[in-house]
């Protein structure tokens, strides 16, 4: 906990017209850890993620990467800083195969400026192997033929391939069965094990309590609390989500009543 966080948000504000979606949000994600981001529908999770990803530039506040404040004005800025978002609806192209998807937009070219399929295939296999993925038969399978868990695997492996520093997973297990959820959570841990700061956006308390090192709870656009997982019980987290406070933790009674929003 002594090291400088990979990503730190300080006092982030974001409004859409008159709607104040985020107000002075602080949030920290450390390398090698899984940081869960939880909150009820409309609490601002997606907006916060899109602020980090540069899709919605922040109105006020700082985004600090490895100790340095950076301006993130668009997705390209975020990508240059090593931020990768794996969306819930999985931005994979069905008609392309696994290799083609993993390298989309960043294809390896030969000296003749043609696609270097062999190199890309090898690198893709290495990335999958580094995560101990054994569920994918061939990297030349079209994505359309993959199961939900396999798709999630491909999306996560893509971030390994690109040596991302911050990987944001948006509800990675929402559409998965029990066994596949297990596999994906394993993958999330291994991803963090590679020194990545993983941010896990989730509704599923079991998942969060199982893999997170730290939990940030959003309540009506405010960061109710960011706590170490081992310091809290699931009940406390649920209270934070639904009421914005739990005993000593969380927002003051006035704030949590929603008056400030």
């Amino acid at each position, binding site marked *: 906990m002594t090291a400088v966080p990979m990503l730190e948000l300080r006092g982030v504000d974001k409004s859409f017209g008159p709607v104040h979606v985020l107000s002075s949000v602080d949030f920290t994600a450390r390398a090698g850890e899984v940081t869960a981001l939880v909150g009820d529908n409309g609490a601002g999770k997606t907006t916060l993620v899109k602020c980090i990803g540069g899709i919605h530039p922040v109105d006020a506040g700082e985004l600090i990467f490895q100790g340095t404040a950076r301006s993130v004005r668009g997705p390209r800025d975020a990508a240059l800083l090593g931020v990768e978002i794996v969306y819930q609806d999985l931005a994979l*192209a069905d008609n392309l195969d696994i290799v083609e998807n993993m390298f989309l937009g960043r294809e390896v070219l030969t000296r003749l400026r043609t696609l270097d399929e062999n190199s890309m295939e090898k690198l893709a296999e290495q990335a999958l192997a580094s995560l101990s993925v054994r569920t994918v038969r061939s990297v030349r399978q079209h994505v359309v033929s993959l199961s939900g868990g396999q798709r999630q695997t491909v999306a996560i492996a893509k971030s390994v391939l690109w040596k991302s520093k911050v990987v944001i997973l948006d509800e990675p297990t929402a559409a998965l069965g029990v066994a596949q959820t297990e596999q994906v959570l394993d993958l999330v841990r291994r991803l963090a094990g590679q020194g990545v700061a993983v941010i896990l956006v989730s509704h599923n308390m079991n998942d969060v309590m199982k893999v997170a090192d730290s939990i940030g709870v959003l309540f009506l656009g405010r960061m109710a609390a960011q706590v170490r997982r081992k310091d809290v019980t699931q009940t406390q987290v649920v209270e934070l989500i639904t009421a914005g406070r739990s005993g000593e933790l969380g927002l003051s009674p006035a704030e949590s009543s929603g008056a400030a929003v």
Partner: protein
Amino acid sequence: MDQTALLFLVLVAMVVVFTVINPIFFSSAVFANILQDWGPIVLMATAQTLVIVSGGIDLSVGAALGLSGVVSALAMRELTASGQSAWSAMLLGVLVAGAVGLAVGLVNGVLINRVKLVPFIATLCTMGAALGLSLVLTGGTPVAGGPAGSIQFSSKTYLGMFTVPIIVVTVIVVAAGLYLHKTRFGRWTYAIGSNQFAARGAGINVESHLYKIYALSGLLSGLAGMFVYLRLGSGSASSGVGQELSAIAAAVIGGTSLLGGVGRLAGTVIGAFIITGVLSGLIIIGVQANWQRVVIAALIAVAVGAQGLSNESLRAK
């Protein structure tokens, strides 16, 4: 079985059937004629394949062919009247035809990217406008008076069936195939047609890519216009009417999916051979020429139907 190989078998079967009914079909004269029909169709079908793979459609290819044929005919007539050589006139013709096609394609790009029209409507507009413009320019009469000897030049065959324009077309189509299947441009085209959201997420500039695709489609159609001019020795507004149907048919028969993201140029090339071969074959075995459109329509129905069935069996697996 590989889809391209299957298509090739269909093509071979077609040749066999027509030859059995009328042995004249299997001759270099007929093949030369089919190739002359194939040239402009395969250029437009190549354009169409790029566009359809990207998830769009280009209805303006035939009208772009007509307009570029007319405008380059007018330009060549001027140059010839001023006493320039046939070669310089034909060179100018190629440049003008390409430029006019390119312009039509860029208008499509603007309508799709800026005005936010869906490709079907955008290219329907340019199709009407380009046809109308070529009628305005010519009053509906063919524009002749271009370089002398252009027909002789373009119809002189080598090995009994290959003309210079056909060789040029073949080189262009092979280059387009490499571009589509071996480069980043091609990969992005498939990605955009498959999932535009994913393509954007991967940092691809979808708008600028679509400009390139429609511009290329227009350029290829413009060159098809020059091909037709060389064959007929005149430019006519009506020369491209209905040709978009054949171009789309060739791409679709070749396995290109109208849903986007799927297609191989080799399939399109064979598809164009099947279309032009069937049309010539029907004439040779004595079917009235007016049946042609009906036959093309039926071929599209069969090809798309077969695709749908094979997709369903894939999903059922």
